[in-house]
């Protein structure tokens, strides 16, 4: 059964991933959407996403990321949570929380990941889940 792809919406109505995607090069955005569609059609534990979908580890365990390279040696990431039985929604979801970009051969800092987790924690603290509709 395909999973739904949803965007997390903050209490103020903003949709972090939409803002992020709006700033991405068109080709990067398209590629990221194609990865999301593939994973939604064949969610874990199937192999899916063409190698551009990976589980995260360490402090980010529980998150999955879409990893796409862009022009000018820039790298783009979407951070997602998977929920088999999300409260109040009744179908399995890929919740896209937010995205970040960085230069090739650099790393996101702890503060960057902390910011992602803040949004993810906000999402997980709502019942039913607050998503863009």
């Amino acid at each position, binding site marked *: 059964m395909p999973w739904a792809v949803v965007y997390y919406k903050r209490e103020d109505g903003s949709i972090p991933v939409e803002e992020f995607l709006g700033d991405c090069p068109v*080709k990067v955005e*398209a590629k990221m959407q194609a990865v999301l569609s593939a994973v939604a059609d064949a969610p874990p534990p199937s*192999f899916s996403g063409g190698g551009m979908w990976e589980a995260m580890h360490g402090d980010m365990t529980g998150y999955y990321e879409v990893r796409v390279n862009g022009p000018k040696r820039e790298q783009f990431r979407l951070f997602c949570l998977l929920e088999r039985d999300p409260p109040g929604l009744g179908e399995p979801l890929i919740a896209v929380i937010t995205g970040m970009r960085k230069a090739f051969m650099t790393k996101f800092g702890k503060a960057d990941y902390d910011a992602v987790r803040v949004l993810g924690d906000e999402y997980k603290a709502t019942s*039913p889940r*607050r998503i863009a509709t």
Partner: protein
Amino acid sequence: MLVYENDEVNKLAADTTYRERRLIERMRDPEFKAEYLRAQSSIAQVDAVMRSLDNLREAAGISKAQLARQIDKNPASVRRLFTSEVNPELKTIAAMAYALDAELVVQPRKSRRRMRRRARTPRGKRAAMA
């Protein structure tokens, strides 16, 4: 856990298609659409290769750990490969294919083969064939 009460509860349950609607809108941009379709094809091929290898492994009755040992890899890393937790390297894919008595083949798409055949066929003969 924060529980918010509002009239949107039922709507939320039913409406998870916001992203789909946005995707349909974005597909109106030819550049977006072309790249989306290109990426979709590429992803489908990589996924198909990995799933085929996993099917071959299962058909051969070989566990992921056994396959890992055959290609000198850590069992956990092979398990992660098949569950899409890490990006597979081509040389690992080739090694797994060899261990499973299979091989990777790259071939022209059917549409390209048709075009090439058409280009080689003289016009008169094409008309006779039609």
